[in-house]
């Protein structure tokens, strides 16, 4: 069965490629992405309330370290094989170490459709994974110089839309609990897939605009966009096993690892590493990795988690 939301994404890409007169108005896109971020946060928050925070600490730590390591793997590949300039390689590496909430939302919908259980506090790990890659990216680009205004970088990261709404949602869900949220459930939870469908329509349009500029950057970026996602997914799967997550949770961690940021990291990199070409990293993350993950990756990573569990947990 094909998820209808995926078809909205396909519609967006097709409409974009044939240059249809179609565009989600800016404020509506903002609204839709706000709803998604809040919903994801709320769902995670409800689960957080059910378990002691201390149990989650090892997971938080491991995911944070994963966020540090992924860009360190991507950077030399981009430098040596891709022959990118240092700033460009560092910026792209940061995008791939961080995470895409859109991909997470599609994955959550996938899990729901197939009735697959996963640890519902995953949104907390999503927030954790947003941050470290940005720091690594800046250090890779500039070294530890005094020139970097860490204050404004921190502001850009922690006061950015993504982190504020995810953390805010987590917090509200945690305090209010499942019953408390009943009154707002229709907007946030019941409409989730419809909202996600609209979001994916716009993402398809954006992806199409990136795909059409792909030819300028050559084959390497395509191979990297897919290859890095697969490699990260394997690492995520390994860490999922290490943390004793369920099959669904392992798949989710693989998906978090495989996804590439397109909101938090571009904004932070633009401010702190302005010499990096933003078109390169966004073409890779939105034109290649996002569509790959949404159309092909998610079921593949799930299959990978199933097999890994069968082998290592047998």
């Amino acid at each position, binding site marked *: 069965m094909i998820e209808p939301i995926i078809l909205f994404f396909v519609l967006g890409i097709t409409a974009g490629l044939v240059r249809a007169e179609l*565009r*989600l108005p*800016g404020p509506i*896109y903002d609204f839709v992405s706000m709803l998604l971020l809040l919903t994801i946060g709320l769902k995670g928050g409800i689960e957080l309330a059910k378990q002691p925070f201390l149990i989650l600490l090892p997971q938080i730590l491991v995911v944070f370290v994963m966020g540090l390591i992924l860009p360190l793997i991507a950077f030399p590949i981009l430098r040596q094989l891709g022959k990118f300039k240092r700033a460009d390689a560092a910026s792209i590496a940061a995008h791939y170490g961080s995470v895409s909430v859109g991909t997470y939302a599609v994955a959550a919908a996938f899990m729901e459709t197939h009735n697959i259980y996963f640890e519902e506090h995953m949104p907390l790990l999503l927030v954790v994974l947003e941050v470290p890659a940005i720091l690594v990216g800046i250090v890779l680009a500039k070294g530890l110089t005094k020139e970097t205004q860490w204050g*404004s970088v921190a502001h850009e990261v922690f006061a950015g839309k993504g982190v504020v709404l995810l953390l805010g949602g987590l917090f509200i869900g945690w305090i209010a609990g499942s019953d408390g949220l009943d009154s707002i459930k229709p907007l946030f939870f019941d409409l989730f897939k419809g909202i996600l469908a609209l979001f994916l329509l*716009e993402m398809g*349009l*954006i992806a199409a*605009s990136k795909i059409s*500029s792909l030819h300028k950057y050559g084959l390497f970026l395509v191979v990297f966009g897919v290859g890095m996602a697969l490699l990260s997914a394997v690492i995520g799967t390994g860490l999922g096993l290490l943390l004793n997550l369920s099959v669904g949770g392992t798949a989710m961690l693989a998906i978090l690892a495989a996804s590439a940021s*397109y*909101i938090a990291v*571009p*904004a932070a990199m*633009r*401010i702190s590493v*302005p*010499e990096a070409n*933003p*078109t390169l990293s*966004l073409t890779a993350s939105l034109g290649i990795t996002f569509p790959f993950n949404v159309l092909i990756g998610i079921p593949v990573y799930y299959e990978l988690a199933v097999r890994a569990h069968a082998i290592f947990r047998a």
Partner: protein
Amino acid sequence: MTIENSQQGHLQGQPRKYNSMLVTIVTESSLESQLSRELEGLGVQGYTITDARGKGESGSRNAGWDADSNIRVEVICSESMSETIAELLEEKYYPNFAMVMYSHGVFVLRPEKFK
């Protein structure tokens, strides 16, 4: 000739004398907060920011979402301030950001408000 024009002693069709400069900056919206701080730091009295879209050397910027959006910043100020702004932008932002700046004389009421 309208009443307003006659009061200020201008004939229709003739250029009015300007008493201030209007500086317009079109750039990436990711710069909004940084640029506002910078302008305030220079002592600019006020500015207006609007969302913009268009196409230029950095490709099409159609305001579909954050990273593809532009802003247009308008500042009314004195001639010397407009030069200070130009120097700052040229040195700090022109090398790495999509940015266009232009300025021209404008006639404003209460010119003392715009330093």
